């Protein structure tokens, strides 16, 4: 999960300023670097601050291995939704139906496995297909018939919620087969000798660190090859160290409990995959183009309708996946599952740097935004803050984050 923030080469420093920064030593360099990349690093720093604050307020409980593991499990489905939502928002649309769709696919999975005894891998595939179909229908209405996405997905929100209740007849349905439960609660299997740590998780962590370091050096070398401006060596090493340290800490925390949750592995794969698509694939480019300036994209030959259609189809698949994870985690399908998930996913995207008018945002940003909300949730739970105040504080967090973004943009005069 290393790509986006790091791979983007920062704008070169104006000569005067970098000279001044060099005088201030490493700290000066860091500050100068931050100032230039407020947008990219701002939210990451905010997330770091929130983690540190809550770690202090909870006397370290926040960072106990069991809690970190919990935090991942609790937020995984919102993060999955946030990835898809980020694409939708970048394309200049919105999807209000994902919460209901999440509930619907969970219910569908329960009907298949619990009531009809269909094996769980088959049910999983069928659920993803149902999600794709739901997304495709909404995408068709939005892209080809030109009905505003707000309306189509608002209708979808009501419709899928209703269908969920019909499917479940108002009852909660469970339990799920063990295989499916793993999707929500499972961890990587333990292998090898007893080391007090979860071996496979450690191994995975080290492989990830190696991959990140290799990737960073390769990027830097290629940038130098093309005589692009690169971070000053000291700053680069500092950034690399921070990145490695963060992964290492997370690995050790998870490995000292039950190991890496399976859903974390799925999430990691999604982030890397979608990050890559949005950065490097033609499809990703076209999403940014239609969101940034639709008429210009059309006149450039971008097949805007097709792109929009697939963005919503994709959202449907991810909503189905999230639905399976939620159902598996609760070990039951409930008619009330997924309520307000769409709003959390939308909030995550905006906290993570998306723009109301489209064309802006990164997958990693959505994850960071989702984590900000997730840590706030978890930390306030540990502090026994009531849900009433939790809502208030999360609302304020959204306002502050987007307000900061607007202020920062205005200041830089763009």
């Amino acid at each position, binding site marked *: 999960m290393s790509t986006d923030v790091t791979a983007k*080469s920062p*704008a*070169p420093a104006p000569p005067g300023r970098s000279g001044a920064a060099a005088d201030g030593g490493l700290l000066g360099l860091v500050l100068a670097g931050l100032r230039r990349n407020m947008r990219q690093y701002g939210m990451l720093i905010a997330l770091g601050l929130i983690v540190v604050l809550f770690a202090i307020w909870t006397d370290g409980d926040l960072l106990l291995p069991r809690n970190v593991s919990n935090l991942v499990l609790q937020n995984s489905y919102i993060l999955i939704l946030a990835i898809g939502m980020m694409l939708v928002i970048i394309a200049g649309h919105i999807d209000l139906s994902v919460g209901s769709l999440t509930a619907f696919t969970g219910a569908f999975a329960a009907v298949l496995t619990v009531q009809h005894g269909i094996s769980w891998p088959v049910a999983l595939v069928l659920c993803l297909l149902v999600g794709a179909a739901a997304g495709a229908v909404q995408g068709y209405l939005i892209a080809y018939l030109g009905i505003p996405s707000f309306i189509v997905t608002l209708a979808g929100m009501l419709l899928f919620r209703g269908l969920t209740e019909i499917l479940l007849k108002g009852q909660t349905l469970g339990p799920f087969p063990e295989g499916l439960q793993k999707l929500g609660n499972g961890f990587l299997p333990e292998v090898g000798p007893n080391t007090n740590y979860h071996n496979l998780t450690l191994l995975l962590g080290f492989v990830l660190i190696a991959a990140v370091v290799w990737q960073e050096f390769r990027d830097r070398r*290629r940038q130098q090859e*093309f005589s*692009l*401006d690169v971070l000053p060596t000291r700053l680069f090493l500092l950034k690399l160290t921070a990145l490695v340290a963060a992964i290492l800490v997370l690995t050790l925390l998870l490995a000292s409990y039950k190991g890496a949750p399976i859903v974390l592995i799925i999430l990691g794969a999604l982030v890397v995959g979608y990050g890559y698509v949005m*950065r*490097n*694939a*033609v*499809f990703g*480019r*076209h999403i*940014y*183009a239609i969101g*940034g*300036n639709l*008429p*210009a*994209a*059309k*006149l*450039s*030959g*971008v*097949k805007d309708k097709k792109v929009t259609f697939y963005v919503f189809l994709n959202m449907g698949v991810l909503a189905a996946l999230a639905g399976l994870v939620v159902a598996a985690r609760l070990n039951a399908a409930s008619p009330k599952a997924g309520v307000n998930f769409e709003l959390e996913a939308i909030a995550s995207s905006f906290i993570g740097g998306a723009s109301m008018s489209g*064309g*802006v945002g990164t997958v990693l940003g959505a994850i960071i935004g989702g984590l900000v909300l997730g840590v706030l949730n978890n930390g306030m739970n540990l502090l026994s803050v009531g849900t009433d105040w939790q809502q208030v504080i999360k609302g304020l967090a959204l306002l502050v984050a987007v307000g900061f973004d607007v202020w920062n943009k205005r200041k830089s005069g*763009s």
Partner: protein
Amino acid sequence: MAGPVLEMRSIVKTFPGVKALSDVTLTVRQGEVHAICGENGAGKSTLMKVLSGVHPYGSYEGDILFEGEVCQFRDIRASEQHGIVIIHQELALVPHLSIAENLFLGNEHARRGLINWRETLRHATELLRRVGLDEHPETRVADIGVGKQQLVEIAKALSKQVKLLILDEPTAALNDEDSDKLLDLILELKNQGITSIIISHKLNEIRKVADSVTIIRDGRSIETLDVKAPETTEERIIAGMVGRDLDHRFPERTPHQPEQGATPALEIRGWTVFHPVDQQRKVVDDVSLTVRRGEIVGIAGLMGAGRTELAMSVFGRTYGRYAGGTVLKDGTQIRTRTVAEAIGHGIAYVTEDRKHYGLNLIDTINRNISLTALHKVAKRGVVDEHEERQVAEGFRTSMNIKAPTVFEPVGRLSGGNQQKVVLSKWIFAGPDVLILDEPTRGIDVGAKYEIYTVIDQLAAQGKAVVFISSELPELLGMCDRIYTMAAGRLTGEVPRAEATQEVLMRHMTKDKEVTR
């Protein structure tokens, strides 16, 4: 005739980086119809915005005297209180409200916030009768044609006790019949004592309604002529609009020698397009033209002549409703029903409105350039960013795009550099035919020269170039052949040797008959 009702003295208006008006003096007599004419961008609309308070007092230099008093309008409301009402080119009506509601919008017949419908309807009926509009006041504005909407605007002006009515190209969007009606109404209002200023470049209209005409060129008032005087011929007005040759400079160009019998790279036959909303209006009417390889062919025309509409409808039917005509590429008929098809056949259209239709302003230079042909820097759907960057760097050097890196958001560049990015992205698409729509609009002289050089090089490489422009000097300086359009029709085809500004302007202001 009576004395002056309006005097504008030495008006100077500067926008950041551009002097829109450098010295305009205008005197309008009580009770006359005063025409203002000049080329596109001469400063006519800016002058009227100064007069009506859109550009408030203090943002310009010079004095405005209305009925002998010095005016310091802070906004449109202030000028309207003095009886000066402007009707803009784009009508300012709310389509989903009724005629009556529109008439009194912001000025309702109301008591304590509640609308008095009785009085509203009575007054509306009276106003509609005055402008000769036979519609029920409760009809939605969206349900009546543009011509009638124009009349509603005038009725609205009358409701404000108008003394000086300003009409900015009132007939540009109207068909002949509606135009005639409107012009008659202006004369009728004149009989009722209302002074009018009409901005127009249709000379026949000016001759029909105006008493005097002031010519504006490059932000200066050149002269005021008495339209009724025998020496004021259309030629005389055209000469004033065109003026002497400006100090534009163009790259040395050897005119293209057409090979005998060579097949045109692009041929358009009988192209006809209807307005997207107004089903009756032909915006492009039976236009046929050809461009050969290595040739630069100009299309001249005034605002509303249908040039952009022609280009966009050919380019993937991105404008209006197609009603007939064929496109041939190298002698073979091709389909250009979508942008992708047009690009696939090697056609590129560089828009006149780079901010809205040309660029994604929040994205970087390299990503804007690659968008039209991403497949060229991608393998199996994955963009090779390093190759993309090299392509962009190549254009940054060859087109002299002034930016610190190719990762700069396009929105931060100056107009000239943005235009170079738009050109780059279409050159990168590798077309055989480039349709350039006002490629030098709103950019400074230095950047213009660079763009001319690029256009010249493109032709030298054997590309066919269609050059749409409102600036006659640049067409004369760059083109091998120039077509003229007026009111959606082709009105002339002038070879380089015979082209002068006067000849072109003559064809451009011709309203109906078609030569050749």
